[in-house]
């Protein structure tokens, strides 16, 4: 327990040190504000953005895209993954296309989606759903396929029906894989949201980045970058907590 507190304290000290170093460099070398503003400017900017509720509005816009796009992509990925895992011939037939699509940077579709679906939320949701779909689907296939043959024997002895086989064993067995896939997908979906917004939008954190870029507002840029980083950080922590809760039985969450 004592060790844990120490490591947390150390992390915090590290942050303080980093900010102090930043301040010192800016002051000593007299770095102009339009190249690197001092740390306190970021704080003032953040306060100002919150007071004018610019930050909240744009944050919520991005958050909404992620929630909707990620949910659609994850659900589609799970359903498609299960179907492909069970119908081997379908998976074999589609695998070259899946591979091409999986390895192609889906982010490159962002400009296309903006043209197709406009500047609104739809183009981002589609992009996010697409980047989410693949890691979830691939991991679902792996997870279901990894079901031990003896489980099927056991289920046959017990005269289980197909639905029971799916819900009571295959999906449970796939859960650790699925958690890995969704965690990966969540981080990717944040990237997709921001890039989608940068390609063309009227709101969102990516929109603020473009704004800051066009107005040479380094302070705005840095503030938004920090907000985006914190967003991915906390979303990942949330996912990790969920994973630990769902997988208490799994080796990966074994403590001590």
């Amino acid at each position, binding site marked *: 327990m004592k060790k844990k507190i120490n490591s947390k304290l150390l992390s915090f000290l590290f942050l303080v040190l980093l900010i102090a170093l930043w301040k010192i460099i800016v002051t000593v070398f007299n770095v102009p504000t339009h190249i690197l503003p001092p740390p306190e400017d970021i704080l003032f900017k953040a306060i100002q953005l919150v007071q004018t509720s610019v930050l909240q509005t744009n944050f919520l816009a991005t958050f909404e895209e992620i929630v909707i796009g990620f949910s659609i992509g994850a659900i589609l990925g799970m359903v498609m993954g299960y179907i492909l895992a069970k119908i081997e011939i379908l998976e074999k037939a589609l695998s070259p296309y899946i591979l091409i699509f999986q390895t192609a940077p889906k982010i490159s579709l962002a400009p296309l989606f903006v043209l197709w679906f406009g500047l609104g939320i739809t183009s981002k949701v589609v992009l996010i759903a697409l980047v989410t779909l693949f890691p979830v689907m691939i991991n679902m296939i792996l997870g279901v396929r990894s079901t031990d043959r*003896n*489980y099927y*024997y*056991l289920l046959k*002895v017990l*005269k289980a029906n197909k639905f029971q086989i799916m819900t009571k064993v295959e999906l449970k067995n796939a859960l650790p894989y699925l958690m890995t896939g969704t965690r990966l997908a969540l981080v990717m979906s944040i990237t997709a949201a921001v890039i989608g917004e940068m390609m063309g939008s009227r709101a969102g954190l990516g929109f603020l980045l473009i704004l800051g870029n066009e107005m040479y507002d380094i302070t705005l840029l840095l503030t938004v970058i920090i907000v985006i980083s914190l967003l991915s950080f906390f979303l990942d922590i949330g996912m990790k907590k969920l994973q630990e809760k769902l997988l*208490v*039985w799994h*080796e990966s969450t*074994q403590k001590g």
Partner: protein
Amino acid sequence: MNEPVVSVNNISKIFKGSKKKAKDFVALENISFDVFKGEFVSLLGPSGCGKSTLLKIISNLIPSTGGKIDIYNENETEKKIPQFGFVFQDSVLLPWRTALDNALFPFEIMSNKKKADEKHVKRLFELAKLNGFEDSYPRQLSGGMKQRVAIVRALSYNPEILLMDEPFGALDAITRDELNNLLLEIWHSTKKTILFVTHSISEAVYLSDRIIVMGTKPGRVLEDMHIDIPRPRDEDTKLSPEFFNYVKKLRVMLKNSE
């Protein structure tokens, strides 16, 4: 000891060669024997004699290529209740379920969990000396304990026949002896018919009323041997001359068949 519960008639199993040139592999050739009610029968043979395959055919997990299996079961009318308990070499416990939930899993599949069933399973837990571990996950249990949970699960729905596929093969010698004695205790108190696959001669002699000795290439029955060592048997049995004689006889028989 009069009515057969399991009747194996001329069972054969041929694995077709996967390539054109590959020869067909005869895993089992004309296997016939009966298992009677309440009997403890072992299938003994070296690895590759098809004893596990035979057990899977008897339990209808895999199809045979010839012959017929007859099961005479009292609850045959009840379609939803499994005909056998099956214990695998690996415990095949579901890692996301606690020990008790694993043992209750069959009822969930049959979707008729009653209070009485849970009581019955808790009694089996005591019989298997597992009390106190109901809420442990499989990864927290030792190999021997996992196998005990697997036995409890197989007996939970009270099947008449218990099929065991080298259930103690992966355990260390001490745990294995311990579980052999436990199995005999459970057998005495539940009066099940047990068909037990093993490649250990002493284990087969110690446990069985009868041993079906199997040879390889092709898998066949060498002898159907009665073990007339009085019960109850305990660790002293293993030191008796009659025990030693059976072991010796079987060892010679298996050696000559090679």
